[in-house]
């Protein structure tokens, strides 16, 4: 399958995104999200996305890849429309420990699809670059300035 954005990690885990048309409300921009781990693949499909979803996601990913202390310095990513949240748990010079959660409603439930995994800063930055490639007019330098 052709994913628009890939964020693979160590240990066979990763998050993959693809642009979609939302199921509800219908015909609005949406996203398919796959949370992958060895032995499991949870797909959350046709979620609506909020305004500027991809640009905000790219900026967030680039910011955490560039930050020396992303858990402290970069606010968690949250998109209310899709229920997608991402935050950094651990980090070192090369790796980032990411917590990804997709909530069904505004209240976080214990059964909501989620994934804790570790990836490299380079791969996280590359995911931001992949988003930039599908967003005409957005330059990577914008992300860098935002991250300062």
């Amino acid at each position: 399958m052709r994913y628009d954005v890939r964020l693979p990690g160590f240990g066979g885990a990763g998050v993959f995104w693809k642009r979609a048309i939302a199921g509800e409300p219908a015909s609005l921009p949406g996203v398919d999200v796959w949370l992958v781990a060895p032995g499991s693949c949870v797909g959350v499909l046709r979620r609506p996305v909020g305004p500027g979803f991809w640009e905000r996601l790219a900026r967030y990913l680039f910011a955490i890849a560039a930050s020396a202390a992303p858990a402290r310095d970069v606010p968690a990513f949250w998109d209310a429309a899709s229920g997608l949240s991402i935050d950094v748990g651990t980090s070192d010079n090369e790796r980032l420990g990411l917590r990804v959660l997709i909530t069904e409603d505004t209240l976080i439930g214990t059964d909501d699809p989620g994934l804790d995994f570790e990836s490299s800063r380079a791969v996280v930055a590359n995911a931001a670059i992949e988003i930039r490639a599908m967003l005409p007019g957005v330059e990577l330098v914008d992300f860098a300035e935002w991250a300062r």
Partner: protein
Amino acid sequence: MSSLMTLLDGMDGPWLRTLGYRSNRSWPGEDDDLAVLAHVVRLGEDQNLQVEQDFMEAQLSFSCASLGGTEANGVPWVMLIQAVPASVVWSANAPHAEARHANAPHAEALWAMLGELVAVLEYNDEAETIAAGELDRGRLLGDYILAGVDLEPVEGWSTRDLLRGEMAEVAGADLGRVVAGYPECAFPGRPHCCEHDVFDDVFAAWRRGDLAKLDDGTDGADQRPTGT
């Protein structure tokens, strides 16, 4: 040239960067019917070798070893090696297995491993399989014969050890020295931090960057697989 080296032969300067294997898995009587399948996968130009290799290897249920490197133009590649006893797959797939490969349980195992690879490649549309080969025990033993190694001690090795010997050769070790040092030490009489396992000794020296120095007295700077 060994089977692993042959699989890398069509690549442009397959510089070895990463190397790993799993030693914590065993099946009873595995050497009798162990099916081994290796694939060389070229990754996307900008993809991260360590992460992609680790992701793919962990996704493969039957993964037993992997190698990774870059070609001369910087494009990363991985070699993924899977192994499973044919009888294990046969039992798991019965009775449907019988209908498909009534006389070829080995084929059932190869199909199972191929299916695993196809599934993991679904997550990476830039990845491209460029070489593949089955590495059964007979073929691995044949590689040692072709390398001019005394077969008598090698015949008692497990299939996994035969495979690890070929991995050591890809890392740049002399196969004859590996066989002579089996099972405990690859560099007897030479000062080194011994792993007390001939293969681990080679892999540890490769990671330190002093394999060539220990193996033949050169400066150890060139980590390119030999034999290409």
